[in-house]
């Protein structure tokens, strides 16, 4: 099963433009609410029509603005689980799950789907008598029962507590491999996105900012806005001093930082760039151990400290003139004796620095950042 998706549309003041594809994998649509994630699912399902674009499901065009193809939702072979589940309240679990099933062997297949989702014993119960997790499984079973190999899931686990979410995410990953499904999964939860995604599509204000493998999006965000959305705490504005062989030297706030040349892009000397480093990638060193004049070492003083139990978040005032956020696990925090010392040397390992082009899009979104340039 494959999905090819390209759509542009205007809805009042909201302008939407996105293009991506999915194979046999879980593609996570990630972004804040109102970014266009749910809209994308509605466009795929045929509940909304884009102004322009082309949507192909399993080789069959279901929408094509140029040739006028536009199949209604009931003729698109998809399974769609909406955010509030929308289980039909007047039907039993079996009636709900069987709603979209037709043809020969209906009863047998219904039984199989109910068993697959561990719903056999609830088949004659009404949805309101089920727990949140059971309702979730019933909604998923109903979508699967159509034997659609493209599954659209809109924040399916958002209403559940953490232990159930963990279980259902595991179940989804199992189903994906068992049933050869393509799954488009919408979430605004960063950890959930990281856990289930094969590929990640980052949406913001109706635009698809980056579509890439999960690790690439997290390690090499396309621009400042993607970095912000994917939880990069430190984004510095700098200028390229020297572009050497595989290594860039970037000046930021008076300090000289070395970073690898990003893939597929070689900034020129003197060009303005953004440099991203995640809080958990910054190392603490004792002040007297190293010479702060070296590249990628900065002096910093702790101004704020937040203890989360397993980790500590430290906010440093640094020579860069910007706050640098550092996340450190509880154990090294104690071993290093962070509680008793305010001044530290911060090491920004070159391999963990990611240099990004300064785009107009990114500049527009930068005001929401915790650390502004």
């Amino acid at each position, binding site marked *: 099963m494959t999905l090819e998706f390209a759509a542009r549309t205007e809805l009042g003041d909201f302008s939407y433009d996105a293009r991506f594809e999915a194979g046999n994998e879980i593609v996570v649509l990630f972004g804040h609410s109102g970014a266009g994630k749910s809209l994308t699912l509605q466009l795929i*399902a045929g*509940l909304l029509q884009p102004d322009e674009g082309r949507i192909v499901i399993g080789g069959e065009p279901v929408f094509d603005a140029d040739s006028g193809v536009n199949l209604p*939702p009931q003729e698109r072979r998809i*399974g*769609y689980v*909406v955010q509030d589940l929308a289980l039909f309240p*007047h039907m039993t679990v079996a009636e709900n799950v069987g709603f*979209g099933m037709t043809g020969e062997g209906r009863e047998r297949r219904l039984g199989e789907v109910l068993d697959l989702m561990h719903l056999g014993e609830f088949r004659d119960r009404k949805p309101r008598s089920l727990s949140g997790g059971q309702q979730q499984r019933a909604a998923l079973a109903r979508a699967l029962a*159509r034997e659609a190999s493209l599954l659209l899931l809109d924040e399916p686990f958002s209403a559940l507590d953490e232990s159930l979410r963990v279980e259902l995410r595991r179940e989804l990953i199992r189903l994906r491999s068992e049933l050869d499904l393509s799954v488009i999964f919408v979430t605004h939860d960063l950890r959930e996105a990281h856990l289930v995604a094969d590929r990640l599509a980052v949406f913001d204000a109706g635009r698809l900012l980056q579509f890439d493998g999960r690790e690439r999006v997290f390690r090499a965000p396309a621009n400042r806005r993607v970095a912000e959305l994917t939880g990069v705490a430190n984004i510095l504005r700098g200028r390229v001093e020297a572009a050497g062989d595989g290594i860039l030297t970037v000046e930021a706030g008076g300090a000289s930082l070395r970073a690898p040349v990003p893939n597929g892009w070689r900034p020129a000397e003197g060009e303005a760039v953004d440099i991203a480093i995640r809080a958990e990638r910054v190392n603490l060193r004792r002040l007297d151990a190293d010479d702060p004049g070296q590249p990628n070492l900065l002096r910093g003083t702790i101004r704020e400290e937040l203890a989360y139990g397993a980790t500590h978040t430290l906010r440093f005032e640094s020579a860069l003139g910007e706050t640098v956020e550092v996340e450190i696990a509880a154990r090294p925090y104690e071993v290093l004796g962070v509680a008793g010392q305010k001044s530290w040397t911060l090491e920004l390992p070159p391999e963990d620095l990611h240099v990004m082009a300064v785009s107009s899009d990114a500049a527009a979104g930068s005001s929401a950042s915790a650390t502004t340039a």
Partner: protein
Amino acid sequence: MTALRARAPHAGLALLIAVFALFFVLPFAGLLERGIGGSGTWDAITSDTALDALTLSLWTSAVALVIAVVAGTPVAYWLTHARFPGKGAVEALIDLPIVLPPTIAGVALLTAFGRKGLLGAPLDDWFGLTLGFSTVAVIMAQLFVGAPFYVRAARAGFASVDAQYERVAHTLGASRLRAFARIVLPLSWPSLAAGAALCWARALGELGATLIFAGNLQGETQTMPLAILSAFERADGLTAAVALAILLLAVALVALAAFWLLSTRGRGTA
């Protein structure tokens, strides 16, 4: 002291409830007292006039209800989901007969469908078809005053069904008709049933518009309310009026109870 102060309004409220309830119960008591005590009640109930009127009332109000449901359901569904300028005005217009005095409805029907009316005149000239002062007019009057109750209730019922259910039904392969029949109809069933009961009750009790637009001919346009009025207007006619009133009341109660039973059963199995 606080307990006393809290109690005082309770006593007042209890009195208010009792007086208010009495106001509604007493007329029925009076009706029954007069009917059971009076001689000639049984004769009046079994008279030809009464049976003709009852038969006419029952079948005309049933036809009006069927038309209201068949035509009103799609209109109400469309009105619930359609968006167009002036929608509020259209909805107000449909609700208008609910608040309109029935005599005005009768006059209005006459000016539209009477022999000299807007549509009545050409119908009479070209086809020799006269609507006014016929059984058809009785049904038209009942439909005019009763159908808005059904449409109003159906609109509320349809609006109470989360549109998400229908959308999900479509993604599960259901056509619009199937989604309506399997999802919308069962979920809005209580509203539809209540609206239909109100519509029928209003049609059964229709007097003013029928009198003006359809007249008062026994066997043809004289429905039960008109028969009661005619009996009352005769010298010494209170006994007959009371008897007919009791008959109509009993029939209406039985019908509504049966309807209620059917609709709650229907909701249970849907």
